[in-house]
């Protein structure tokens, strides 16, 4: 049981931090400093234990889906909904959910964790289940290399006590299977026809995707077109329409379903799974749609080349005004090389109306070499946003943005429209 003083103090800090707006990890930092065992003792109370979700792309939306699926099956779930996926973000979320005595009213904890922070976390708190989504080129300046990131995910898998769910279509993730002896392994995957839509960083410049025989997957995304998808769950086929957009979000729904199966085993109800997945919307900034001046405005988070490529592939630019906002703060990654691993030719016909962010000129230079026309370049995000909206009235809008650019844009947008508050 955490010390009552820690809980009250932590809760107060959380309240104050929310009053000054943003900063979901700040109160967690206080608790972490004062009582390092806080997370461990609080989570140890949970009857179904801890689930960890990690990987480069799609953690937040996948976690949101897993929580919805478990709740639809009647469980009370604790999660770090903020997308603040460092340890102190978990502590901060715990503070919001525990009562004054430090008791957490939940059956299970589903946590998304940043790869690097997950390693010390699982060492202290071994998860019962883990879901490892993918290893893509992202924030290499923080972790060094993709192979190093894969080793971090391997450590999460090895610390897991019950079942590890892995992406069959990511060679680095699948390989983790070979290092596991005590854990059950379940896989999720894609049909051969869909696989071509998911070139990995390695395949990208290597020409066609190699066909190799792959192990059987428990959950398969068989078909995906427009807003409908067909899954194969434990050998049976199910089709549904989706509110999710973007191929990668839809693939991650297969991951969420596979994890749900692993947790609930025989208690899993396929019909409940399908009706729940049909209603899930993307997490904030992951294809989220706002209304500005009677027109939709979509925010699409881009943080690595594969995510950016899939975003461009998922959303047609025809009829839309497009803005791109690139920052290079610590949370975005300082290295701009990744922009050169994305092809922007699909934007050539419509052009890009507004380019913004700290590295606006890097982005503009990238577009120059794909011969994409640019309306304005404005490094300041709020000026650029205003310009973008004023110059494109009566037109649907789409903004591709890096993480910290998205936070700024959402704050600006919340002054003129309804933006979901993330608590």
């Amino acid at each position: 049981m955490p010390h009552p003083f820690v809980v009250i103090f932590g809760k107060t800090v959380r309240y104050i931090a929310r009053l000054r707006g943003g900063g979901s990890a700040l109160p967690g930092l206080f608790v972490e400093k004062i009582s390092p065992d806080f997370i461990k003792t609080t989570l140890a109370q949970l009857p179904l234990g801890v689930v960890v979700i990690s990987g480069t792309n799609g953690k937040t939306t996948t976690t949101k889906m897993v929580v919805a699926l478990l709740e639809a099956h009647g469980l009370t779930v604790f999660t770090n909904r903020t997308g603040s996926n460092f340890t102190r973000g978990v502590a901060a979320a715990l503070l919001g959910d525990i009562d004054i005595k430090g008791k957490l009213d939940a059956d299970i904890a589903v946590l998304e964790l940043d790869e690097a922070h997950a390693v010390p976390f699982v060492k202290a708190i071994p998860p019962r289940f883990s879901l490892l989504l993918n290893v893509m080129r992202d924030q290499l300046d923080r972790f060094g290399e993709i192979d190093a990131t894969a080793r971090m995910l391997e450590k999460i898998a090895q610390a897991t006590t019950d079942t590890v769910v892995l992406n069959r279509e990511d060679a680095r993730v699948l390989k983790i299977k070979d290092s596991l002896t005590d854990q059950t392994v379940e896989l999720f995957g894609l049909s051969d026809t869909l696989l071509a839509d998911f070139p990995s960083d390695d395949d990208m410049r290597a020409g066609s995707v190699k066909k190799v025989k792959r192990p059987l997957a428990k959950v398969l995304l068989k078909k995906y077109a427009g807003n409908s998808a067909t899954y194969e769950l434990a050998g049976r086929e199910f089709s549904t329409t989706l509110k999710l957009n973007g191929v990668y979000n839809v693939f991650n729904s297969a991951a969420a379903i596979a994890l749900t199966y692993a947790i609930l085993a025989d208690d899993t109800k396929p019909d409940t799974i399908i009706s729940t997945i049909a209603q899930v919307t993307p997490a904030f900034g992951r294809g989220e749609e706002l209304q500005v001046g009677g027109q939709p405005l979509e925010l699409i988070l881009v943080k690595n080349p594969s995510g950016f490529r899939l975003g461009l592939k998922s959303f047609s630019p025809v009829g839309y005004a497009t803005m791109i906002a690139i920052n290079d703060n610590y949370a975005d990654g300082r290295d701009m090389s990744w922009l050169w691993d994305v092809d922007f030719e699909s934007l050539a016909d419509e052009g890009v109306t507004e380019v913004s962010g700290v590295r606006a000129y890097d982005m503009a230079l990238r577009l120059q070499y794909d011969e994409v026309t640019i309306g304005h370049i404005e490094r300041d995000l709020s000026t650029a946003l205003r310009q973008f909206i004023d110059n494109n009235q009566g037109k649907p809008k789409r903004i591709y943005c890096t993480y910290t650019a998205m936070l700024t844009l959402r704050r600006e947008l919340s002054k003129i429209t309804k933006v979901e508050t993330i608590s």
Partner: protein
Amino acid sequence: MNIYGDHGNLLVLQRRLEWYGYEPNIIHYNVGDAFPADVDIVIGGGGQDSGQEVIHKDLVKIGPKLKALAEKGVPMLLVCGLYQLFGNFFKTLNSKTLTGIGILDVETHGTNERLIGNIITSSEAFGDIIGYENHSGQTYLGKNAIPFATVLKGAGNNAKDGHEGACYKNVIGTYLHGSILPKNPKLADFLIQTAVTQKYGEFSHDIIDDLLADLARDAASDRPR
């Protein structure tokens, strides 16, 4: 070996040649391919340490052909991983030695220290060169290698010498990603001009507007390491 955005270098050479009115013919050389006969520019990138081992054997095999091109004055740009393997050897942390093809008189030693972040260097020929470095191999120059540039901000070849990259004739090895060519068009034009002059005896061309590159250079220069 294409994971670190070095595709940008290829794209910049291709587009600038087109904008200058030439028709570039791009050949992707992969492990086991027949070595192309008529080569005007060679560029190569970096990759994972694991990727390095895969290409190593093949590179040693085609080494003499690359060496002959280098002696002839063919311009080459090798970034990071291939820079290391164009040297004499790469000694990994666990004392495994990968022999290089020895076009550049340099040697590289694997370390536990990753030299990472924005970097600015300066060379007489190209002025300030702006990029991003990310390597744990540290490279030391032998007496027949000339440093490519002097480091103004960042690490460069290794943690102590204060220089970056190496040159031999028209061969340039460097640690700079970013990609290096988009923000350093002078360097791109050096490769192009050298190759075109060797092929056609002269290089006539229009002027390319590099305003965006200049602005991107300014913005990058002000960023933290």
